[in-house]
């Protein structure tokens, strides 16, 4: 397997893809949002319970490639317990990682997604669940779609 491809499908990603964390509906959710990636048909629902400014619980559901599923799964583990401001900051870091391939300074599981930058068509797969989560936080009824922004 080429270096690029093994960078893309890192063990962290394969693991989250095989055993997704926090998958399913969240009965106690007080926010949710749907995201889709019209070009490839990937879909992702994010459910969360906001407790004041803090993400108390978060789950996702949907279908898509290993990258999009692993990204959604990993995201839920990262966002749980964070404030909404921290969530936005994390997304910025994540976005930087998947578009530039630069690993973050602190050690982070998010770094597993650095390989995505070599596959520009897959960047949308990696960011889909994050867009849905941010929309849910904002209480934005409009659905997230990876077409209206270029990542």
């Amino acid at each position, binding site marked *: 397997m080429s270096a690029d491809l093994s960078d893309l499908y890192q063990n962290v990603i394969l693991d989250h893809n095989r055993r997704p964390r926090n998958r399913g509906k969240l009965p106690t959710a007080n926010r949710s949002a749907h995201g889709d990636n019209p070009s490839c*048909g990937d*879909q992702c629902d994010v459910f969360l319970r906001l407790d004041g400014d803090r993400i108390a619980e978060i789950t996702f559901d949907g*279908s*898509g490639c290993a990258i999009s599923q692993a990204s959604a799964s990993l995201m839920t583990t990262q966002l749980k317990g964070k404030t909404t401001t921290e969530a936005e900051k994390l997304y910025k870091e994540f976005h930087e990682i998947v578009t530039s391939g630069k690993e973050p300074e602190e050690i982070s599981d998010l770094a597993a997604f650095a390989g995505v930058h070599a596959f520009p068509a897959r960047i949308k797969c990696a960011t889909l669940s994050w867009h849905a989560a941010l929309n849910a936080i904002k209480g934005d009824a409009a659905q997230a779609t990876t077409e209206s922004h270029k990542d």
Partner: protein
Amino acid sequence: MPSTWDSIRDQFPILAQQVNGHPLVYLDNAATTQKPLSVTRALDRFYALDNANVHRGLHALSMRSTDAYEGARSRVRAFINAEAPEEIIFTRGTTESINLVAASWGSANLRKGDVILLTEMEHHSNLVPWQLIAQRTGAIVRYVPVTGDEGLLDLASLDSLLTPQVKVLAFTHVSNTLGTINPAAELCARARKLGIVTVVDAAQSIGHMPVDVRAIGCDFLAFSGHKMASVTGIGVLYGRRALLDAMPPWQGGGGMISSVDFEGSRWKPSPERFEAGTPNFADAVALGVSCDFLDGLGRDKIQHHDGALAKEAYDRLSELPGIRILGPRGERGGLVSFAFDGVHAHDVVTFADEDGVALRGGHHCNQPLMKKLGLTSTVRASFYVYNVRSEIDALVASMARTLKFFA
């Protein structure tokens, strides 16, 4: 360079490249086919010798351009056995052709409550234009069902679907996802008996098998050059002349008017009425050369070649664990589409690309059909004249490797 099955790959220089260290195995022909040298050279020669705007021109280059453009129209007429060149309208491709019929014929002929009958296997390009004109006119869209994974039209349901409200039946000749070859002549005959106008989406048949509009008996037929060994940006709408001449224009502009006043305008008959503005004459000339190329190979031979590869791919892929293959087991067009349990189509396609194998993964512009089948995407391998049996080996090996990785 004449078109011939001997050394056919030499006529397609793009195939002689390595992708990720492997020889390119191009199996994405249902999305677009590659172009033979005879076609790209004709295009280049046209720009180097004859290029000038067509019609209305009296100088040498303009007359040569016009002759070449109208010659291409006549070539296409013969290619699909239409009655007259006036029945051949040049468009950008299948999608524009169908939009033209839906908007022009539809706006003049559809009323509230009328039914537009499609099938569940239509490509978005033969679906959304009808939804748009239905919205505008108050007509209703109905669908002939597909019989599950086997992917045949449920012809038994036709009797109850062909009500007096049905004004138009539009269907694909060959499904781009299932590989099904629909019984076009039979469908058109049944529609015609009831006075229903028929529109055939020939995007996936035109380059792969003989297509004869009079044998099919359709009123309209649409196709794209880029899927029949020709260049992008050119396609055709065939329409029966009596219908075309009764249709209002769709786009307005230079070349399609008989006279223009500040107060209003009158139109030329077909094909000019439907070709507003400078047409894509250079690519039309290339399309004519592609007709020569395909007829040189023999369209019956192409159908046999592509179908045999698809059949073999079907049989060999069937042996893979957790695979679900769509479409008929028997006769099929030159493509196979399939899904794996637990491995997403996009991951499969990305891995295949590593092996130099070009596949398509996704909904193939067939979202409603996918939903019905409980899928969001499939992997599709589609064949053309230059593909060879050893490329099926590469395909199957790549699939096996991917399955192992994700197991």
